[in-house]
Structures are given as C-alpha cells and as structure tokens.
C-alpha cells in the first residue's frame, strides 16, 4: 500500500465517519474527531467515563496523521503500512461497516414505477492454514428471487450509483428466499468453490506432520505415557493440521434494477 493510498484511505475513513478535516496538504491530514470516533480510536475510557458521570462538555481530540516522512515540521503521527494506527483504523472500519442496505439510484423514465430486485451480498475471506497460511477474498451475490449467484459482486456494485433511501418511482420486489436461508445457500456455494480447488498443500502439510510425528514417537519410544509426549503431539497438530476457514467481512441487502 503506497503512502498516497494510505493518505486517501485515512481521508475517506474520517469523512465517512463525519469528522471535520482541519488541515490537509500533501502527506498531512489533521482531523477533529467526533465523540464516537474519539471513543473508538483514542483509548481513553476513563476520560469518557468521568465525563458521563460529571456531565461535563465533551472535548474530543484532534488527530494529525502524517504519511509523508519528509514533513518534519508537522507534529503528528507517522502512518505507514505497518503502523499500529493504520491497522487499528482498518479493524475499526470493518467493525463499523459490517451491515448495509442500499438501493440502486435509478431514475425511471416516464414516471412509471420501476422494480428493484433484492440481492444478498456477502464479502468473505477464506483462509487456508497449516504451518503456512494464505487467504482468498471472494464477494458473492445471491438473487433473492431466482436464487442466481454472481461472483465478484462487490466490483459490480462499485460501478453502480447507490443510495440509502429508496428512490422515487421505484418499488422493491419481496424476496422469495429469506436472508437466513440465503446465507446457508452461499455457504454451500463457498464449499463447492473450495472443493474444486487444488488441495495438494494440505496433503503436503499432512506429510510433514506425519514425518514429525514419526520422529516424536521414536524419541519417546518406551515412554509414550510421558506428559511431554502428549504436549508435543498436540503442538504438532496445531502446527500442521490443515484447516480451511471462511469468515464474513461484511454484507448486506442491495436492491438493484434488473
């Protein structure tokens, strides 16, 4: 992630959370935090607790973030890709942006009421883990009327003009598939997608595991009852056992024109 991207990310994050920008120049961003965001980022629960008890006027902090290292004159926190602050903001974003409902902003011609179809969107991270780990990001859309499934759904949504309020002269079609069973359907789809992948990595991990287990057994030859044998054996399982997990990052309901 380039420093410039980080700057833009931070800017969008604070704007999306309604924080006024106090100063901005290349590589420097000063923002006035809202009460909510101060609580979210600044880690001072005692202050907020005290304030609530005494009923004082809240005084949220300002935050100056620097993404250009050459800006030595500016007093602020240097933010780079490894900075704990950035990762705090990443996880804050994910926490604050878990659920959404939007409508496609269409202007039907000739004032005829136009239908909007319900879609369930899930953005999912799949992790493949043994002693090594990799991830795959997938974005799935499920048409809650027909049951059709679309891949790269998020990219498609990004092209559209979306709005939180239902636009004039449009109406929504009621879902036939309920959101709960929609989620189950997508779980099945994910399972199917994964089953088609190449799983040699997990076979290799199992081979490494078996090899180490064999050595361990030889080492404890006549002493398989030993406590440390059980500890080591469990450690090997944790080290090598191939596991695939899927985690929903966020998702929501989108009403789109057909």
């Amino acid at each position: 992630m380039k420093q410039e991207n980080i700057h833009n990310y931070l800017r969008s994050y604070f704007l999306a959370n309604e924080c006024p920008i106090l100063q901005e120049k290349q590589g420097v961003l000063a923002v006035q935090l809202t009460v909510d965001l101060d609580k979210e980022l600044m880690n001072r629960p005692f202050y907020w607790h005290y304030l609530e008890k005494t009923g004082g006027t809240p005084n949220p902090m300002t935050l100056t973030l620097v993404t250009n290292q050459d800006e030595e004159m500016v007093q602020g926190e240097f933010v780079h890709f490894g900075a704990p602050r950035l990762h705090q903001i990443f996880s804050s974003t994910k926490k604050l942006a878990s659920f959404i409902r939007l409508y496609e902003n269409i202007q039907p011609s000739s004032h005829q009421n136009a239908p909007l179809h319900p879609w369930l969107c899930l953005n999912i991270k799949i992790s493949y883990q043994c002693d090594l780990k990799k991830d795959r990001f997938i974005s799935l859309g499920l048409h809650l009327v027909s049951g059709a499934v679309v891949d790269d759904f998020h990219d498609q949504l990004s092209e559209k003009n979306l709005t939180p309020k239902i636009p004039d002269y449009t109406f929504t079609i009621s879902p036939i598939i309920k959101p709960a069973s929609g989620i189950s359907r997508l779980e099945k789809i994910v399972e199917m997608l994964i089953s088609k992948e190449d799983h040699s990595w997990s076979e290799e991990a199992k081979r490494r595991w078996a090899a180490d287990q064999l050595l361990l057994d030889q080492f404890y030859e006549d002493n398989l009852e030993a406590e440390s044998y059980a500890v080591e054996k469990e450690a090997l399982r944790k080290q090598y056992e191939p596991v695939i997990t899927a985690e929903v990052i966020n998702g929501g309901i989108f009403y789109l024109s057909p």
Partner: protein
Amino acid sequence: MRMELTFNEEWKSDFLKHIEDDGPWTNWELFKLAIEAEKHTTVPSFTGLQAPAHLPHLTPHPYQLEAARRVVEEMNGKAILADEVGLGKTIEAGLIIKEYMIRGLVKKVLILVPASLVSQWAMELNQKFYIPAVVQRKSYVWDQYDVVVSSIDTAKREPHRSIVYEQDYDMVIIDEAHRLKNSRTKNYEFVQHLQKKFCLLLTATPVQNRLEEVFNLVSLLKPGHLGSFEHFEKDYKGKEKSIEDEERLRALIQKVMVRNRRQDTEMDWPERIVKTVPIHLNEEEASLYKAVEDLKRHPVGTRSQFSIITLLREICSSREAAYMTLKKMLEKEDVDENTESIVLNLLKKIESVPSNSKAEKTLEIIQSIEGKVIIFTEYRATQLFLQWFLQQHGISSVPFRGGFKRSKKDWMKELFRNHAKVLIATEAGGEGINLQFCQHIINYDLPWNPMRIEQRIGRIHRLGQEGDVHIYNFATKNTVEEHILSLLYEKIQLFESVIGQLDEILTRLGMRDIEKHISDILLHSESEGEIRIKMENIKELINYHKEESDETRKYS
C-alpha cells in the same frame, strides 16, 4: 482436512437482527473502505515474506531476510538461529514473529531471554517491529498480554510456572539457548514441557564442548530429529565415526539450523585488532606462583587438598582472588594441620606481594586509550580489586555481573555509556549485554573455553559497531596463562579466524571438554618441556582438522 465453513455465527445473527430492526446500516463509503482494508491485508500466497512491507524503518540485511524465509518456508517455523554473535539474530527472530503475526498464524508469543536482555528485547520488538511486547513484571501479565518477554528463571518459578503452562502459546522463543544444553537441568525440563507450535532457539554457540549439547538443543526443538538419546549415543559418540555418519548428522542439523558467519555475509565488518600483552610478574608474585606450583610435587594426600590449577590461574589474576580461595580452605572443618600450615605460609606470601603487575599494565593501557574500555575477568575478587585500584588513580568504573537484577544491569549499562570510562565484567556478565558503543576489550584473564571468548568479543563486535574493535589479551609470562594463550589464541589464530569452525573441530576431535583436557596436561606433566610437547600435539591436531574443515564447512 478440517473445513470450518459455517460463517461466523455472530455476524449471521447480528445481520438478521439488523434486518428485523430495519437498521442501523453503515454507509457505502465505509463499506467499500472495509473491503479495501481487507484486500490490503489478505495474503494471497503461502510463500514470500510480508513483514518487510510492514517495516519501512527497518532495512534487514539480505542474509537476515533469507534466514527468516528459510525458517518459515523450509523449516516449518522451528529453528535454531545460530548466527555468530553480533549478526543480529534478534532481527531475524523479529522478522519471523512479525511474518507469522501478519499472516495470523501467531498471536500469543512467549519470549524467554536472560534477565539483562528482557527490557532490550521488549523495546526492540516495539520500536523496530511494532510488536506490542510487554515485559513480565506482574503475574497477570501472562494471560492479559499476547507477547510477553521474561527471564526463564522467573517463568519457571511458581506461581508463574503454572500460569505459563496454562497459556496457549503459538510461538516460544528462547535467547541464549546454549544455556539449555544440559537436559538434566530444571530450565531444560521447564522448556521441554512448554507447548511449542512454532519455536526459535537463539544461540551463537550451539556447541560449546560436547556433541550432546547440540543433541539436547535439537531435541527441545524437534524431539526425535536426531533420534532417541540411546541411538544418538550409539551412532555418533563412538570414537570411530564414519564419514557417512558425520555427513548424515551434518545434514540433519542443517535442516533445523540457520548459521550465518561474518565472512559469509558479504558485508564490511569493522576489523578486529588483536594484541597480546605480556605481563611479567614481580619477584613476590613469582615466588607465590612458584610456591603453589611446587604443591604438585607433594604427596597425593596433600596435593589433592588444593585445586592447584585454579590457584595458579587466580594468582595470575590478583592476589585477592587467590586469597579468597585459600581463606575458604581454612574455614573448612576437616582441614588437617599439614594443609593448614601450607595455606598459612601461602597467605603470608600473599601479604608480602607489594603490587599487582597486571593491574598496573591495565592502568597504563586505559590511560593511553581515549574511548571506553571493557575489562573481563573471571574472578569476582579481581573485579572488586580493580574497581578500587582504578579509583585510586582517578578512573571511574562500573562493575557488571551476571547475578545483577535486570534493572540494575540496564542501569549499569547506562552509567557506563554516560558517565564511566571503564566497565569491569565477570564471566557471568559476558553474555546478555550489548555494548557496541565501546571499542576496546581487555581480556584481563583468558577463559579456557574459546567459545566464551567469542561471547565476550561479540558484546562489542556486532551490528551497530562503527569503529574497529581492539582486543588486548593479557598473558602472564612463564605461567599457565602463557600456555593457554599460545595454544588457543595464537597458534590456532582463534581471534583472527572464524570462530564458528572451532566448535565443529573440537566436537570432531572428541575434545568435548577442552578445559579439562588442558587442566590435565598442566597438572600431570613432569616438566615445562612436557607441557609444551603435549600442547603442541593438541595444536597440530586442531590445525589439521581446521584445514580440513575449511574445505568442507559444516553447518552452513
């Protein structure tokens, strides 16, 4: 393979509740940002290092990156990091922890290091790697923090021990791991029972004396990798090792050990400038030395009461050191009259020693040097004496011992850096402090185990050292010290050559305990001539193997 494909339940139920309550919903901008953040933190490949991109302020050396990559990709996260002292094993370890944390394979880490390095480790991990490591000071730290740095001595004691065993560590890191070479110690047993999913053992000297040491280390890391103890004994310990056995052992060790040497790193290291400083005993000191040496000719009954070699070495160091040993003998209950009179006679000789020739030479050198100086001695009594002696000449010094509390060590180091010219360390203080701001070492007395010398020099000849490193080796003429120096440090060219070889060579020779070997020669030889011939033999033997090992380098 286990598949946990049910999506996170909490998200599901929350989502359904939002639908029921008709919100609240997030905004589209934030929703897109969350995906952007996710895409930036997703790691699409099993291989390759992510850590460097997260550490813009750190420029690791290529060999350090390669070490980290090998440990993760080829060694499955269990390795002995055995770079020579001062090459930055901590950096390699930091890179590896960081890599695993970024990939989400490691969350809880236990780092066990010598007491004197605890705060330094925590600081480096925080500052260089943005890893929130916490120094263990209170017992609640164990379960409330993810990355904890502690000394092994604290961790193994109750109430900590039980709490530590209850934690689910993803990674265990042990610095100065050669301290775990003996499998019969409490520390070894403690570490053996820790669950080690991923594990790094850091040591510059994986083998100090005996082949079992490397067996014990590897068995902590990966039990069975070198077979069971009985098989190992049978296969490798016999005198007649076949070349194939050697090769097999070497290959096995290579699989779990990363060992970089200075000369392999293709970097411009500061030079080591080694100087031997001969010391001439004054008349009284010489007479004292001779009196102890003569004890060798007493009947066994008397002779065995004395640790002659120890006394001789002490006399070369300071009369104070010898005095302490003799005094202890008198305090023993069962001391017989004959012994007592010998001891008293020796004490009288000690009293008549007017000055310390070595200390005077030390003073002369210190006064001729502009920068800071570290003096290493083996004896506590010498340490105290030197501190007093230098003080008399207006030179302030700071003592340093292994037994100091962690905070005191840090304090002493800062005192030395900011206020004192000289630091006087005993052997036990040799490891666990980094003093790259100093360029001069006086080896006031030489340890007989060459690996320990390397530990000493490594305190200052390490990453971050900008000047050349000056080493002064004191050797008292016509004494045991001269033999040691001439054998270990001149003829084998220990200082100039690459130390890494020596541990291999000694192991190959079966001279696993070189100290004892030399002691025996010195004690049981009839004449100076005999000593010299026997020492010459060792030298030849070692040099012969050294040449051989130059051709086929062992663990690298």
